[in-house]
């Protein structure tokens, strides 16, 4: 296979995303790319991005999933709404929720990592238990969130956008400036990497591919920023997503624990025989899932400006689906944070495109199911070819 073939294979899902956006652009007569819809796509799916990132780490360890995240999102979010309704300070509330998420994660991680309970079962138990507990603490009611600071910070209500310090009128100047700075930093970092790699004589990708990649990524960022600027600017939830995605991208590619996640999923026995405590790796993955679930819970209730015992239903499935569509292997050991994000975007676009087109919600589910199946078939078949 030539280098073009390899590139196509590597970016299959990105290409699929572009094609699907194209299809919906035609199908919705361009509505899917309206500023408001792009804004909604990002903020509506904030929880999927966060959960998919955490889920990816679990899946890396060997195709293991966490079924409890939907229920835990609901539980943590509900707890937050209750605390704030009792007048607890925002910062304290958020801290409590994060600690709560970590504890729930650690509780399940304990069984998975040290007692060898299959993750599917340990987290299925959590899925039931925390759904029940959410109902108990909320007493079956809707608890509204009135705290403006909380809503503004985590993407809920009318003012959950980064204020425009530069006083733009039709266009949000802050948003555009941030995008330009971001693109500049991105291009500089890539260039610096490439130059240092060249100087040390490392293998680098072709120059054309490199330039194409830089231009495409920059254009997409600027385009999205332009659209957001025409609407209300940067949604605050987007900032959290960016922080998490970038941090976990770094974590999975550059740190030892990140490396171990891949190694355990690729070959647990070999990892063990390399002197690595594989139990710790599992424990980390599931505890971390609890932490990110808490963040997803915060974002969810903030966006809805209330908490209900039914929130978070099937969130686990959205996260799992995003990872697999994004190229994570169902057997573990391969996958990336960016892949999971692309997967989540793809699902988000399909959802939104079909909603705008007025497709029945039931058919939307059918389509999502088929997309997931196709993605995994693609993964399995492309692996078989290699053998």
């Amino acid at each position, binding site marked *: 296979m030539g280098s073009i073939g390899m590139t196509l294979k590597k970016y299959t899902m990105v290409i699929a995303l572009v094609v699907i956006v194209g299809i919906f652009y035609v199908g919705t007569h361009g509505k899917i790319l309206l500023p408001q819809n792009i804004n909604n796509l990002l903020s509506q799916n904030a929880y999927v991005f966060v959960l998919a990132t955490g889920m990816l780490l679990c899946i890396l360890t060997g195709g293991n999933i966490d079924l409890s995240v939907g229920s835990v999102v609901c539980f943590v979010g509900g707890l937050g709404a209750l605390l704030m309704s009792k007048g607890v300070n925002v910062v304290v509330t958020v801290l409590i929720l994060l600690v709560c998420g970590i504890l729930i994660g650690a509780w399940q991680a304990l069984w998975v990592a040290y007692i060898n309970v299959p993750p599917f079962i340990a987290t299925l138990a959590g899925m039931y238990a925390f759904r029940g507990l959410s109902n108990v603490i909320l007493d079956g009611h809707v608890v509204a969130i009135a705290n403006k600071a909380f809503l503004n910070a985590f993407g809920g209500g009318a003012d959950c956008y980064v204020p425009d310090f530069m006083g733009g009128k039709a266009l949000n100047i802050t948003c555009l400036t941030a995008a330009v700075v971001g693109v500049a930093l991105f291009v500089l970092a890539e260039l610096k990497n490439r130059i240092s790699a060249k100087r040390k004589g490392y293998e680098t990708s072709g120059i054309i591919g490199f330039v194409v990649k830089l231009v495409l990524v920059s254009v997409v960022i600027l385009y999205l920023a332009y659209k957001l600027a025409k609407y209300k600017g940067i949604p605050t939830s987007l900032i959290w997503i960016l922080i998490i995605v970038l941090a976990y991208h770094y974590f999975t590619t550059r740190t*030892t624990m990140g490396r171990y996640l891949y190694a355990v999923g690729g*070959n647990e026995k070999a990892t063990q025989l*390399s002197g690595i405590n594989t139990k710790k790796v599992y424990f980390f993955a599931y505890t971390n899932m609890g932490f990110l679930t808490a963040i997803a819970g915060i974002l969810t209730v903030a966006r809805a400006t209330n908490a209900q015992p039914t929130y978070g239903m099937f969130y686990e499935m959205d996260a799992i689906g995003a990872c697999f569509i994004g190229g994570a292997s169902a057997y573990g050991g391969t996958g990336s944070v960016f892949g999971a994000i692309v997967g989540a975007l793809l699902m988000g676009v399909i959802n939104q495109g079909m909603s705008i087109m007025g497709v029945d919600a039931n058919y939307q589910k059918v389509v999502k199911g088929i997309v997931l199946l196709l993605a995994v078939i693609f993964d399995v078949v492309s692996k078989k070819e290699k053998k």
Partner: protein
Amino acid sequence: MGNIILEMKNITKEFPGVKALDNVNLVVEEGEIHALVGENGAGKSTLMNVLSGIYPYGTYTGDIVYKGEVCKFQKIKDSEEKGIVIIHQELALVPYMSIGENMFLGNEQGSKAAIDWNKTYAEADKFLKMVGLSESSRTLIKDIGVGKQQLVEIAKALAKNAKLLILDEPTSSLNENDSRALLDLLLEFKKQGLTSIIISHKLNEVSYVADKITVIRDGSTIETLDKAVDDISEDRIIKGMVGREMTDRFPKRTDVKIGDVAMEIKDWTVYHPQYEERKVVDGVSMNVRKGEVVGIAGLMGAGRTELAMSIFGKAYGTRISGQLIINGKEVKLKNIKDAIKHKLAYVTEDRKGNGLVLTNPIKVNTTLANLSALTKNRVIDKDKEYMVAEEYRDKLKTKCPTVEQNVGNLSGGNQQKVLLAKWMFANPDILILDEPTRGIDVGAKYEIYCIINDLVAAGKSVIMISSELPEVLGMSDRIYVMNEGKMVGEMAGAEASQESIMSCILKS
């Protein structure tokens, strides 16, 4: 004796890069017990897999003539219909099913829609009686011992109406009494007209039961001995098995000074992790010096891998006892990390299963056992990692486009080099290499031997476990021989021969 029941003519079977069988001929007469002997990897099991249809017709060349007709088996079912039934070395029984269920697995009694359980158990009991088992066929497999399980396998074969029974190492997991009982059973069946082919390493057993013995070496038939006319003593059989010229397949080691004892174990005993009453390693004592290559010879299942892994931070076994002395000081290794810290390395025999992460690139595999050497605050220095991988690629002459290549795409020899690189990067003083050249071609083997020579030249100690006797003889300064968990011999490399090692094993 009787008519010829089976004739395998000019069987040749190739695997990618290896000729496993090369024009093998085998003639078996009706009603005899025919033994197939040869070293590990000689091709015995491959030949039987050809016969039973595991390797379907067309993947080999040559003819199988059974009862006068040429057979073209596509799958195991085809050969079983003709009455050829193979019992594999690893027992193929489902532990949580009853004896009766196991016996008729794939051959269920009654109709397709409804299994007739009464008939199943009645039939099963009938065959169990034939093999002398008094257990009810409703007993679960997990509740009976290995000896009895082996008998169930035979009963299962009989239930398939076997005319030609093939047993691959039937006594390898049995104790002496059970083995003898099984062999007597075969002799009993012979009287009733059943033909058997038995593959065995235990030559005393072969001498005891076999009417004829065919010796296979390096994928070719060497000779067939007939009990009635030939001498079939163990020494005679061994001569046939190992009669191979030693050639210049090993690089010379010059100017390596053998120093003090680097590692020593005393009275090392290990029990099986699941069957806790089974001793896998039994009171073993051995040592290795600086700059020395120590070979451990033995048959598969002798306990060599288990010995090595139990030393390597208790990576195998339970209730490990005995002393481990490194550089004159007794140490207790808690886990593998601890072992690596004490400059020990164990390079596994199963590079794909236990050694490498095939979905990860070469550079990731190279650094996995010693990642902390490349990190600052747990962040990996990718530049350094790349340079380390490149360094070892050059040093070991690993053939690969780049170190970003996934290890799964490399050839066996190059994978082995990556595995060695990984452990060399961990900077050990004592390396235990378990079957370091298994399944790789001759050229790559030579390169691996050169690497071993470089290691000892740098003052490291190497323990090499190998089932290939020429390799043990060609590379070792000193040789230990292990059998059934015990050390049964120690000899200087220069004085040892294939015959002396084999008789150590077989006469222990």
